[in-house]
């Protein structure tokens, strides 16, 4: 599972408050996880344990849900998370080559983070911007019609 960390007191309270805002209802688990992930950036084992306790379900149940959905991650992402869309439209317009280029430049695989914690790469299944294919997102910023040659320039924007 994920690396061992200790949750600071302040964050612990925030997590409990998130659970409380959904009345500690076990049916709200997915909503709680969404909120927790946007606060912590990812869902390490310790966070899952607290949520299980607060919603009165087993840790295995929480882990089962976290691991089922690709939106949830147990590893911290980079400061600038790169997501390459691999939907059909992006695929036929060459998204795979763009992905290869990112992997080559950053020397990491999909799902990994660079050693300096700056970049991570993940794949998406369609952000619904097929008209702009191939699409790459860095954080919330969307880049359309990305060519493999353009990858260097995108990375340069964040390497300043």
């Amino acid at each position: 599972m994920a690396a061992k960390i200790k949750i600071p007191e302040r964050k612990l309270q925030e997590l409990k408050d998130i659970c409380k805002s959904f009345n500690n209802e076990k049916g709200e688990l997915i909503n709680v996880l969404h909120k927790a992930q946007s606060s912590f950036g990812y869902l390490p084992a310790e966070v899952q344990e607290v949520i299980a306790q607060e919603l009165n379900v087993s840790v295995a149940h929480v882990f089962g849900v976290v691991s089922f959905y690709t939106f949830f991650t147990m590893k911290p992402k980079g400061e600038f998370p790169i997501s390459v869309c691999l939907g059909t439209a992006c695929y036929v317009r060459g998204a795979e080559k763009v992905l290869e280029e990112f992997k080559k430049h950053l020397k990491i695989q999909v799902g990994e983070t660079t050693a300096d914690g700056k970049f991570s790469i993940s794949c998406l299944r369609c952000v619904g911007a097929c008209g702009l294919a191939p699409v790459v997102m860095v954080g919330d910023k969307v880049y359309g019609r990305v060519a493999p040659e353009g990858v260097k320039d995108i990375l340069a924007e964040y390497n300043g």
Partner: protein
Amino acid sequence: MATHKQLRIALRNCGVIDPEKITDYIERDGYSALAKVINELGTVRTIDLMKKSGLRGRGGGGFPTGLKWEIASKNYADQKYVVCNADEGDPGAFMDRSVLEGDPHSVIEAMAICGFSIGATKGLVYIRAEYPLAIERLKIAINQAREYGLLGKNIFGSDFDFDIELRYGAGAFVCGEETALIHSMEGKRGEPTVKPPFPAESGYLEKPTNVNNVETFANIPPIILKGAEWFASIGSEKSKGTKVFALAGKINNVGLIEVPMGTTLREVIYDIGGGIKDGKEFKAVQTGGPSGGCLTKKHLDTAIDYDNLIAAGSMMGSGGMVVMDEDDCMVSIAKFYLEFTVEESCGKCTPCRIGNKRLFEILEKITEGKGTMEDLDKLRNLSNTIKDTALCGLGQTSPNPVLSTMDNFMDEYLEHINEKRCRASQCKALTRYIIDAEQCTGCTICARNCPVNAIKGERKQPHTINQDICIKCGVCYEKCKFNAISVK
């Protein structure tokens, strides 16, 4: 984009009104369908009208909407639910996103109409977390509708109460399937269960639940206002009204279109889509996403409707339409979809979890030039077994991309297997870099740059590439200044 062949019903307000202003929607007859249903038609006549209109579900299955409502209305329970499926999982589709972003009130109004008709007071929208703008617009719209008394208690002074909440998806394609969607809304893993029981009997929290797609809902207010005859006069014999498609891929005009059912693929691709990009040749159009298939030139004059697309070996699906040209390898396309399925299979049943993985492996073998004629039989047999035995719609349709490409592009499969050749030069293992002796000046730049010393030749003499050593890196092709190297 050419508009004369288009007809906007579901998209009637998109781009026309300000989606964050309820008054804009109301000015264009918004919420008057809800008023008509509550004050004039009542439940029985509303359901009757929906049945007569011929509207079928736009989420892919094409089940008659009026009939679905009637079944849900007849199941008695202390609480029932209306669910809007906004999971839009087909990777190549963005119709539902556009409706929710451009006209959220039409979905809210239609959900209330459905609630009134089947006797439900609670609505839930299951929406992908990947659509933040649509989520924001929906939230604004729901709050405005509450302020105007169009959601809440005693709507239009009647004893009908109705309100809507949002539930978020978390990136699992199978959650678009309605039983999986319901489990996900309950905070569990989104695994499908066997039907029956259908959601109309036992759905969310085991109560009768009516699930409809976003676009299905968006069609409903105009149907109520203009009548069943009007709607039934549009479209083909068994598929009424219009369908929204997301045109993407190698086509000049990408974007959303809405056309009457019965429009031909040729009209969509050439008249509306403006033909193939860069003057290339049309090869295929993929409809129905991972559940659908690839149609080819011979299908261009097929009238698009639910039944014709199934007869042609594909599916309407939710409306993704990806156009492919001569540069696309159809075996690779089939492999692309299978890779998607393998990743998205929930793993609950064996035919889907293991069968699709095997399909993928065979396709991979073929694209690497290691396929045999036997593999083709295996592909077909295994595909049919998976279709017959998988538990949910995901597995039951996942072999379609394989079967349809085998039916329509067998020559490409045979080339990969017998000639070890990929005509689109997409399969890396099969591409060959070749030096044209006529063009080669013997400058030696390729030989000096080849990382594995695959190129031999004397200075000022034509060079050659040893195919057994070449790793297909493409460096020589990039370095040659005389265009002497080509990819085959």
